[in-house]
């Protein structure tokens, strides 16, 4: 039931923001809003790192770092490259590019809204004009 609601919501968001990117946007945002995960993303911006290296730089416990990396992997923000017996984490660029597109769609939403408002005001004021004309006619 909950799953169904989430699906519906994603469908709706997609329509409202005119793009398929909103789902990615949502997971990206939820993942990044946690400060440690944002920090991991910043570290990975400069290049791939192992769990050990990330743990060292963040000054956290390894289980915590692994937990955050799991969230980031599930959100498709990072990907893992196994190399010998090490696991190297690196950023995927796509979700960030989609965020950029999402921001653009936000602007488009407002531009279209302004268009509709323009039309509506015209209708509103034409109507008022008619109404006041009719009042004047009645007064004559």
């Amino acid at each position, binding site marked *: 039931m909950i799953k169904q609601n989430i699906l519906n919501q994603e469908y*709706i*968001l997609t329509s409202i923001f005119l793009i398929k990117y909103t789902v990615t946007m949502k997971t990206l*945002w939820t993942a990044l*809003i946690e400060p440690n995960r944002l920090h991991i993303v910043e570290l990975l911006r400069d290049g791939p790192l192992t769990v050990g290296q990330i743990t060292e730089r963040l000054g956290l416990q390894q289980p915590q770092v692994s937990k955050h990396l799991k969230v980031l992997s599930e959100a498709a923000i990072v990907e893992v490259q196994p190399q010998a017996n090490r696991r190297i984490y690196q950023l995927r*660029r796509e979700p960030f590019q989609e*965020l*950029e597109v999402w921001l*653009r769609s936000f602007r488009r*939403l407002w531009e279209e809204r302004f268009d509709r408002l323009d039309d*509506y005001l015209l209708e509103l004021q034409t109507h008022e004009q008619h109404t006041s004309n009719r009042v004047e006619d009645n007064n004559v």
Partner: protein
Amino acid sequence: MFDYHSLGPAIGEQEIVMERQFNAPRTLMFQVFTRAEHLKRWWAPPPYTLPVCTIDLRPGGIWHYCMHSPEGQDQWARSVYREIVPPEKLVYTTTFADEHANSTLGMPEHLTTVTFTEEGAKTRVTTRVQFSSAEALKIAVNIGMPQGMTITWTYLVEYVQELRDSLS
């Protein structure tokens, strides 16, 4: 000098600003932004409609609305008014919501400032959208700033330059 910014929204900044001049007096503009009967006519992107729109127009008051699709699906959103200066200014924060006006996840919380400026008999409306967690957004956008985009823009700039050269 070619203006890169004219190509699109100011990417890399944490706010989106949109402006337009409307052929209507300022008091009317303020009303169409703050009265449900008006908002129902223009706020939702078609084919969505705005069947429910309740407004408690005071600082801390909630503006709660539902966008309804032809397929019968509802998306609720809620805004909380931060500042109201009729007919000059309106400030509110927005998130998606449920039908009881509780915030839900789905988009970054954002602060919208709408200002209404008189320009003769017309009114300029400026909408400034700022996202919370601006730091996260900034980092994310910077990572997303694809080389691809820069390349496209470079091509475009070159293309415009070529056009100019061919015309002159």
